[in-house]
Every structure is written in C-alpha cells, then in structure tokens.
C-alpha cells in the first residue's frame, strides 16, 4: 500500500541569515513554490491538499502560519492543514491524505526564521514548563550534556565529532543552499574554543533561515509529473519521553523504532537531521547505517538547519537522489525536540512496489 505514493518534486531556499525576511515565511516560500511548480509542470490549482510545518515561537507571534497561506494564494479556498512541527511531519499528514484517496497531489512546506531571536534560548521552552524550563537549559547545553555522556561512556571522542563536522563541510561545498562549507581538517577544528563544553561551534548547526517544499502524488499521477518518481516505500515516526532524566540520552529508541516501522532495511544514501555532530553518530547506530551508506552528501543540518524546514529538506534531498538516479534507495530523517526526542524516517525507492 505504502509504495502507492511518490515524491515528485522538491525545492528549498538557500539557508542564510535573512535580515530582510519577515517571520511569516512568504518571501522565502513564493520563489520555491514557483521553482517546484515549474519543475513538475503544475500550478497551485493542481494541489489537492496543502500541509505546512512552522512554529509560532520561532516567529515570535501567534498564528504565524496564517500569513504563510498568502504564499499559497488560497483563492479559491484550498484544502489545507498545519502542524506545529518540522514540515517532515506535515509531509506525513499529506501522505496519509493521499493514501485515503482524498487528494491525488499534495504539497508539504516548512519555513523558519531561526535568526529572529536567540534560538538556543527559545528552544528551552520546549521543556517541562513547571520543573525544567524555568531553569532555561538552552538547546545547545542540553545537547552538550548528551555529547558529554557519550564521551565519558567511550562512545566517541571530540576528534570523532570534529571529523563529522569536517566531512560535512567538505560535502557542502557542492551544495549552493548550504550556509556553511569549506575545506578544514578535524585537527584545525579541534584547536578552536568551546561554545558549550564539549561542543565547539563546528559541532552545532548554524542558525539560519530557510524554507523547503516537497510535492507527492499518487501512483496514478506520479509518472506523468516526474520521469523517475521517488516512491515512498516506508514512512514512520515515534516520540521518546519528554523527561530528559527518564531517557537514556545515548539511545534513540524512537529513531530505531521509526526505521523499523518504515522497514528501512538497506539504503545507499541517508540524509540525517542531526543538528549536533555527535547526533549523527547516534543516529547512524540507531538507524543501523553501515560504513557503505553515503550520509549527508548535502552537508546535512550541520551546514544549514532552517528550523521546521530542515527535516523536510532531508527527505527532499534523499528523494532528489532517487529522482536523479544517483541512488536507488535512500532514507530521509527528521528530528524534533531536545536531544533527538522525536524522530521520523522516510524511505524512498526508485522502484514502485
């Protein structure tokens, strides 16, 4: 059943600090909607269901997604919904809608202006509002605790973490949408100062603004829209406990569970949403990715992490690898919440089932 739907189009805005852009996402969305419609030969009237992902807290206002509806041009009215999550989950909702037969073509989009405030401090408000958030443990500090646990348990070294960052930056040189890229050695990175020990700047995703869009279609329409559709062979997500003290921060059961539910199996390429270098190491293990899997050929979230769009972009990039013929089976992953609390896996294949 699940291979009856395919990704047929993807576009993303370059990840940048955009001082000119408002928090509504419209300036970032309009150009990429035009790009993906052009590539698929579609117009907005062809979209049967729209679903977006964004955050009011990032935008600093209530109902931030309401203005983004202007980017759709929903006149006449559209069948539309919104998740207060990374848009990877909006794609999941859209996928379910296509499976029900209520829509043949659906579009998911996400946007985030992460640079509008101090992101790491804003994200502290995702924690237990009574007992934890009042202490303002910011997202980088929480990730640093996780990295520290791994170091002390002998799971990785600071050099391993720096090597993830160096490899990601090298890969990002061929990705014009990346915010950070370049040739640098792990040794050079390790000479730089800590931002939250044991994390250095290279261990943390840069703060950047961006948007992404993915179009999916039912089997009946996918082949006419795309020469080589990326068929969704598995799609699943799970959440772990919201209590940091109740979790083993060195295990990511929700990622492993999602991969199992999505029947991920073996893939050639994986785009992982790992906003911190050590989280790529954790996710490789949780998802069972061997050395032969190309991980984050785009440079990954360490080279551009537009909040609420970056997870969707991972799926889009994995799909693009299948659509272009570079991979026959690829995996896109998204995460949400502190220290990899919530995880989603989407498996894309060049072959329909």
């Amino acid at each position, binding site marked *: 059943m699940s291979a009856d739907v395919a990704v047929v189009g993807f576009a993303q805005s370059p990840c940048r600090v955009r001082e000119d852009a408002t928090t509504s996402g419209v300036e970032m969305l309009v150009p990429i909607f035009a790009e993906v419609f052009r590539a698929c030969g579609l117009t907005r009237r062809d979209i049967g269901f729209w679903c977006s992902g964004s*955050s009011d807290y990032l935008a600093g206002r209530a109902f931030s997604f309401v203005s983004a509806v202007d980017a759709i041009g929903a006149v006449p009215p559209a069948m539309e919904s919104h998740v*207060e999550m990374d848009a990877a989950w909006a794609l999941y909702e859209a996928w379910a809608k296509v499976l029900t037969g209520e829509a043949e073509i659906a579009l998911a989009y996400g946007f985030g202006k992460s640079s509008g405030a101090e992101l790491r401090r804003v994200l502290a408000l995702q924690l237990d509002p009574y007992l934890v958030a009042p202490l303002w443990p910011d997202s980088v500090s929480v990730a640093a605790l996780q990295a520290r646990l791994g170091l002390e348990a002998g799971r990785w070294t600071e050099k391993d973490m720096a090597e993830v960052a160096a490899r990601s930056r090298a890969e990002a040189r061929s990705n014009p949408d990346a915010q950070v890229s370049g040739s640098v050695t792990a040794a050079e990175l390790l000479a730089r100062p800590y931002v939250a020990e044991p994390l250095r700047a290279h261990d943390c995703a840069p703060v950047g603004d961006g948007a992404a869009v993915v179009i999916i279609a039912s089997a009946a329409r996918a082949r006419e829209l795309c020469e080589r559709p990326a068929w969704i062979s598995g799609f699943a997500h799970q959440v772990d406990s919201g209590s940091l003290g109740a979790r083993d921060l060195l295990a990511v059961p929700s990622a492993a569970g999602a991969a199992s539910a999505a029947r991920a199996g073996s893939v050639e390429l994986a785009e992982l949403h790992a906003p911190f270098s050590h989280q790529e190491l954790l996710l490789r293990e949780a998802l069972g990715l061997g050395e032969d899997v190309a991980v984050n050929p785009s440079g990954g979230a360490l080279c551009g992490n537009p909040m609420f769009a970056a997870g969707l972009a991972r799926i889009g990039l994995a799909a693009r690898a299948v659509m272009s013929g570079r991979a026959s089976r690829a995996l896109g992953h998204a995460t949400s919440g502190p220290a990899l609390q919530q995880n989603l896996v989407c498996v894309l294949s060049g072959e329909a089932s």
Partner: protein
Amino acid sequence: MKQPAAVLGVGQTRHRSKRTDVSIAGLCREAADRAVASAGLALADIDAVVVGKAPDLFEGVMMPELYLADALGAVGKPLLRVHTAGSVGGATGIVATSLVQAGLHRRVLALAFEKQSESNAMWALSIAPPFSIPVVAGAGGYFAPHIRAYIRRSGAPSHIGALVAVKDRRNGALNPYAHLQQGDITLEKVLASPMLWDPVRYDETCPSSDGACAVVIGDSDAASVAPGPVAWIRATAMRSEPTMFAGKDHVNPAAGRECVAALWRQAGITDPLNEIDVAEIYVPFSWYEPMWLENLGFAAAGDGWRLTEAGETALGGRLPVNPSGGVLSSNPIGASGLLRFAESALQVMGKAGAHQVPGARVALGHAYGGGSQFFSMWVVSSQPM
C-alpha cells in the same frame, strides 16, 4: 482506498475558569483517560496520538506535546501536533480520522486542550507583527464589525444574538461538563448585560476556560469490538482561505461554503436541514449562530436568524444547535473545535445525557478559526455508510 472510521469513545474535563488542581499534563490526562475508558480501552491500546491546541504563546510552552508525550502514553508511538487556529480542535479530529482511513493505524487518540488560566490570550493575540494589521482587541473586537455587517445585510432584529445566548447557556446547564451553569438565564438579563463590542454583550460572549477533550477513533475491526455504540464518520472536510483578499466575504466566507459543499457531497446529504438531526457549530459570539446557519446552507443567505427566532435551533426544534451549550458555555480555545466534534458523536451514540436529542442519527460537528478563514467539519452517523 479509504477505510471506514468511527468514534469509539469520548472524554472531556469539567471545564472551569481555573483548574488549579491540575497541571497541563494532568488536565490532558483526565480527558484522555475518560476517552479510552469510554471506549473500553486503556492508553496502551492506542496506536498513535494527535494533539491539537491553539497558539503556543497562550501558555508559553513551545510545542507542549513534546513535554506531554509521557502523560498521553505516546512514548514509543507516533505523535502529531496540529495547529490550525480556532479550527484546530476539528482539524485534530480530522487528522486522526485520516490516519485510520489511510489504513495506518487501528486506534488513534485525538486530544485537544487549552489552559487559559495559565495563559494570556489577549496578550498573545495582540502582538503586532511587521506588515500585519494589529487587532489589539482580541477576537471580539475583530468579529464585531462582521456581525454588524451581517445585521445590516440580513435585516435581523437586534435581539437575535441574545436569543442564542439564552438557548446555549440553558443547554449548558444540562451538561455537567460545561463551564458556565446558567439554567436560570433570561433574555432580559442578557439584554441588560454590558455591551463589550457592539453588538456583542457580555452574556453573548464565550468564557475563558481550562479544559481538554479527547476522542478515540478506530477502524471497523476496532469498532466491531467496541463495548457500546460508535459514531461512524461519514465525511470530513477542511478548507482555508487568506485572512484578507479583494472580494473576501467576512460574513459568509467562501471557504466555509466550499467546505460544507464538499462535506455534504461526501456524506451523500442533499437537504441538510432535513437530513441533519443535530448540529454542534462553533459559535463564540452569539450572532455567529445565524451567520453559520446560512454559511452551512441550513438557511438561505439572510434567513438564518429566522430559524433562531422561531426556536428551531433549540432542543425540540427542527435543528437543535449546540445542545452541549456550545462555545458560549465552555471555551478551552484549542479544545473547543474537538468538543463540537465530540458532542456530535455523543449525540449519535445516544450518550449525551440530559442534552440528548431524542433519536439523533446524523450529526454535524463544525469549527472555524483565524479571521473566518479556516474551517473543519465532519458528519457522524449511528450507521456506517
């Protein structure tokens, strides 16, 4: 291929202005426990959870579903968080329905909440973002001009809004979960209450409530083993349009008209006034009853108030509207839409207690949000399609 889906159980909190005895998690768990218990299930039997609420700025918790994962029994399961403004409660029910209809899950818990005593909705709604028109008046100030436009267009007598308030508050007194218990309210009292946003008086306005609502939605196998009657979901529909655009009709929005047209088509309903036995409609300000009766096609444009004036929307009338007491009796904002959907299910299950419409078989649940621009609706029935 769309799988049949049904409401197996419904739960809600006793809505109050301040639930200081529970945290946000405690409030949500109360509704979740009641919903699964009424379906003869435990939280462990739930395959996925869908959470809805209005803006995170209300309670000051960013994506509270992350913190609520444990309280909702969602750990190790899929958890989705929906936010579509005031229509979110309805959208939450519809997303959960989609997951069952898509064949992805057998039993899904849809839960929506708001804890207004830990929030400041007026503040959250009055932030002035760049390039947007500041409302700085909360929802009442936003909607009052559209109500005045309705009165001018329809020529409705000025007491219609007060009639709606009396009916809904009296209905609320039949519902032990309703926040406001005003069984002795009279037309004179409503008309004598202070004018807040002309023509909306104090007694014609929804309260600020703490509350949560949960619904268990299951597939036909799950429905076949349910301990009591279920409510079959015959149709769902959602439509959105921008807040402002040239030609926008704020009184009778196109998004609402197209949404209900799709809904009736899917449900096979051609004469809604005769085929719908009871309707739960999102009426946060009294005058929205006649306005939505027209938008939903229960009456021709300009004639909705006639149904209200004739008492046809009261219990015992031709189309009882909001037998639960509606948003005018309880308004935990994020949950208000799901409460409409839940009450429509209770009605066709025959489990609505003192506010039961006798013999109700087909019911409408309706919610709207934003600047009359987001609509979510469903039709439930005591019988499968």
